[in-house]
């Protein structure tokens, strides 16, 4: 169903041609007859709402899932991938949305696991492996030593390792499933450069993203997914933002972040002299009632680390904390929750959802006291609570009693947000709240945040997305290398200012 009106398209022959690809899961039709062509030396953007079937297609192209129907042609010949290594052998590599790497292994081992360079005797050639890893990391502009153990890396660095891993195999087709979701603008810029180089080398790139600016910036072609079908496609240069949104959602979505003016009240959280031996130093700020306080910075600036300390996951070595003007101590997450502070972590897979538990139980886990009477959980109330919050956040699920692991990436993110909002906190810390969330749901989340702020909730929002920071925050704190370098009011705030402050470039006086 690919619409291909332009003449320039016919000049080229596609490298990969999909037709009639279908895939179902119990109770869900993830893909329904997808047709798609991918061309060498071009970036094809795949866009669509959360749960539209994008990642499922990626998994079919990499041999992780097998399609129920349809054909895959590679350079004209029909192929079928029965396992991941079949696809790799055919020259298809992918950066998956959820990266699964090995915590206890080094970066180099993670990159080359399964295809490590061998010495003459068939043993792993460690020096070569380290060299190659260093070269790959350098190529993507990642400053990570190949010997580092993976567990010591933050989320963004892990993601860079996953990118390096995908590039470590010789491939003709490179698939990227939301590669920029966990990166800050600096790494993203490097990734764009890398994509340009791959294009120049004649590789075909399939690029999945929810961010419209980047789709227009780097893609040559696009294909819009809705409910497992390709509902429109063509040359990116011949379309515009509104058309894409209309194809995706079936209606137009207000792109402007709807932070409404809320009455800013008394301070609810004051932090001063907050320090950690290795992560951050001398952090001081004040959060007021009804305020949305943005935290901006590059990856590794220490934003998530401060939030984890505030939530009692780690301990600060010094500093004082005041909640509603009274000195407070938080040593465990349970204490934080008891004082009305909750934290929506950035890494939903490990820190957010519990696979094996149904969706509704994931949501009510920290609210069980509220859904219980006399120590017994009341299932009906549990369900009602889960339903209320998932409806507000546009969750797309076949049923709330399904295993949370069957949800698409963006929908899992919504489960994690719903889980914490359902506790009705006083202060909510949102770490990259709309990462991997589609445009319609993003607007819904932002609207909900505004509404909560207007009702007197105080919000700390850690975000690497400049438009989100600019649109939603009443005040922005910029961090760099574990320190606060600027605290800027909403008025007169611009992207340039943020980027300069985060990078440590002084304004020309």
């Amino acid at each position, binding site marked *: 169903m690919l619409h291909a009106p332009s003449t320039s398209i016919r000049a080229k022959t596609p490298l990969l041609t999909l037709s009639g690809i279908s895939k179902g899961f*119990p*109770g869900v039709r993830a893909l329904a007859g997808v047709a798609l062509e991918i061309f060498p030396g071009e970036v094809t953007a795949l866009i669509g709402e959360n749960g539209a079937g994008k990642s499922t297609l990626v*998994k079919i192209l*990499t041999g*992780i*899932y097998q399609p129920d129907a349809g054909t895959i042609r590679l350079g004209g010949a029909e192929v079928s991938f029965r*396992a*991941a290594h079949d696809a790799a052998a055919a020259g298809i590599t992918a950066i*998956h949305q*959820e990266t*699964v*790497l*090995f915590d206890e292994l080094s970066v180099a081992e*993670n990159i080359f*696991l*399964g295809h490590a360079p061998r010495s003459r005797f068939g043993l792993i050639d460690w020096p070569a492996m380290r060299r190659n890893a260093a070269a790959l990391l350098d190529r993507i502009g990642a400053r990570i030593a190949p010997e580092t153990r993976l567990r010591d890396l933050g989320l963004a660095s892990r993601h860079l390792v996953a990118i390096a*891993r995908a590039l470590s195999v010789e491939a003709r087709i490179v698939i990227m499933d939301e590669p920029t979701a966990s990166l800050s603008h600096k790494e993203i810029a490097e990734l764009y450069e890398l994509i340009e180089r791959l294009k120049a080398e004649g590789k075909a790139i399939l690029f999945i993203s929810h961010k419209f600016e980047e789709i227009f910036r780097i893609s040559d072609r696009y294909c819009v997914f809705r409910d497992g079908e390709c509902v429109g496609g063509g040359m990116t240069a011949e379309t515009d933002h509104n058309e894409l949104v209309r194809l995706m959602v079936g209606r137009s979505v207000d792109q402007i972040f709807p932070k409404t003016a809320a009455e800013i009240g008394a301070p609810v959280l004051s932090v001063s002299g907050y320090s950690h031996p290795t992560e951050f130093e001398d952090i001081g700020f004040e959060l007021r009632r009804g305020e949305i306080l943005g935290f901006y910075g590059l990856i590794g600036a220490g934003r998530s680390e401060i939030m984890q300390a505030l*939530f009692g*996951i780690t301990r600060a070595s010094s500093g004082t904390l005041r909640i509603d003007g009274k000195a407070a101590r938080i040593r*465990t*997450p*349970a204490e*934080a*929750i008891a004082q009305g502070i909750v*934290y929506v*972590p950035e890494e939903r897979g*490990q*820190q*957010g*959802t*519990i*696979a*094996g*538990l*149904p969706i509704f*139980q994931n949501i009510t*886990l*920290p609210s*069980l*006291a509220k859904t*219980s009477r006399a*120590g*017994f*959980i009341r*299932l009906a109330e549990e369900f009602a609570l889960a339903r209320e919050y998932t409806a507000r956040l546009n969750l797309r699920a076949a049923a709330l*009693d*399904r*295993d949370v*692991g*069957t949800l698409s990436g963006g929908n899992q993110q919504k489960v994690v947000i719903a*889980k914490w909002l359902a506790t009705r906190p006083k202060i909510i810390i949102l770490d990259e709240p709309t990462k991997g969330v589609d445009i319609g749901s993003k607007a819904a989340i932002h609207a909900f945040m505004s509404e909560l702020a207007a009702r007197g909730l105080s919000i700390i929002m850690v975000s690497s997305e400049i438009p989100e920071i600019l649109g939603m925050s009443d005040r922005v704190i910029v961090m760099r290398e574990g320190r606060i370098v600027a605290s800027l009011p909403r008025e007169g705030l611009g992207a340039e200012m943020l980027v300069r402050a985060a990078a440590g470039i002084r304004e020309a006086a």
Partner: protein
Amino acid sequence: MMARLLKSREALLAGAIALLLALVSWRFPGFVAPENLARIFNDTAILIILALGQTAVILTRCIDLSMAANLALCGMVAAMLNAAAPGIPVGALLALAILTGAALGAINGALVWQLGIPPIVVTLGTLTIYRGLIFVLSGGEWVNAHQMSEPFKDFARAELLGLPVLSWIAFLVVAAMAVLMTRAPLGRAFYAVGGNPTAAIYAGIDVGRTRFAAFTLAGAIAGLSGYLWVSRYAVAYVDIAAGFELDIIAACVIGGISIAGGIGSVGGAVLGALFLGLIKNALPVVNVSPFWQLAISGTAIIIAVVANARAEGRARRIILRKAEVLA
């Protein structure tokens, strides 16, 4: 989806039990007579109770190898006290056995929680220590039936509405555990801690404390079973229930409790224990030699593990399959 999957897994197990019953009754119709079934249930009651304690522990991604040793130690304490002071009422001895068991389980839990030693290592150690303690206490002597008071021996065997008290206690424990697992926040915490410990921490659940609670609960259950065991068999010695820890774990595994934690149900554990109990009772009836009895029980365990691994693979495909990409 998980609930549905479990339901079907339990249905499968119930089907296997029905099939087994049908096969045996085809040759020996007396086997399925109500009295005989009640007898088999009563025979399996202690295994059922213990399997439920183990279920709590396994759900939190731990394992308790010391349950049978704990049982033996608590049984010995109760039996020796009864022999020395027959005047102590049975209720007090029962409570004492439960408390002793809970304390022993709490030791396991504390070692896992505070020192961070892997549960398998901790309980392998305490298994030997608890057995050793029985020897120290009893000097290797037996406590025989004639040394026990009548009420002490009668407790488990007394009949109530046509069923022995032992069976009634099993029903009670099953009901209590079912409520705990599905309706109490602690039960939910067991699942959360085993399913994803990191996310559980972020949800404000204290992983160590939850595991401690699971071990203490399993210990209390072992203590209860200790008294029931010596009362029913009217004898206590160092080696009672030796090796029984493996039967307990086997019952859980057959019942679909995932050793990786986070998945399983009370119903599954009960059916797993019943299945094992049925095999043990049925095979001698159809004249299968003891060697083959062991081999058949073993085969049943492996089949169950394979079936469960398949079912889990489906439930967790997203994670498992992705790991394969890297492998």
